[in-house]
């Protein structure tokens, strides 16, 4: 996967951005579906469903939040390149982006559990 010419921070940033974006796109319909279902379910049963109690759902949601944060910061990298015209291929920006993504995910994880 990471052949010689790919061994640099911006390539990893691109790869993360793309993978996160693709997974988010695939997740979206599922997200809407579950949301719609649970709302209907909640209304129908007139009670609350603690659906985040299911460990698998919890894990999935955590991963998704990380992906969302990663894709967002990756997008900021792109927009900085394209609109601010950052010339320096700053590894710091990439590192900060990844850091934020993990932090947000962790925060979510801590709160959920």
């Amino acid at each position, binding site marked *: 996967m990471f052949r010689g010419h790919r061994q640099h921070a911006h390539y990893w940033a691109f790869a993360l951005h*793309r993978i996160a*974006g*693709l997974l*988010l*796109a695939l997740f*979206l*319909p599922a997200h*809407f*579906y579950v*949301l*719609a279902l*649970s*709302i*209907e*379910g*909640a*209304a129908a049963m007139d*009670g*609350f*469903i*603690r*659906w*985040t*109690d299911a460990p698998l759902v919890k894990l999935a949601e955590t991963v998704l*939040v990380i992906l*969302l*944060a990663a894709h*967002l910061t990756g*997008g*900021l990298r*792109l*927009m900085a390149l*394209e609109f601010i015209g950052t010339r320096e291929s700053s590894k710091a920006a990439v590192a900060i982006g990844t850091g934020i993504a993990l932090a*947000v995910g962790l*925060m*979510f994880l801590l*709160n*959920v559990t």
Partner: protein
Amino acid sequence: MPGAAVEAKLWIWQRLSAAVLGICVIVHLAVIVYAVQGGLTADEIINRVSGNLAWFAFYSVFVIAVAIHAPIGVRAILNEMTPLRPGAVHAVMATFCLIILAMGFRAIIGLYTAGGV
């Protein structure tokens, strides 16, 4: 060359929607992190959104932006990494856009109208 203008416009839409999504995602993440304190429940969501026009508008914008943003992104992946022809990719992505819109609005309307508004 119409292709040139199409790509340039898709690029503009992609970036515009990205900018909108950037804000939406931050709000969304903040709400989730805030909301999950003490556990995320459907009730909690419904209570917040149901009948609230501002949240309805927010999530509508969110869904529309996603419906623009995601298919354009996936389109590039399909074009580059699958043998699908550009025409086929276009059709698949148009469908994907409609699916997101339909399912997204079904959820939003469900939320907005939940609790018998």
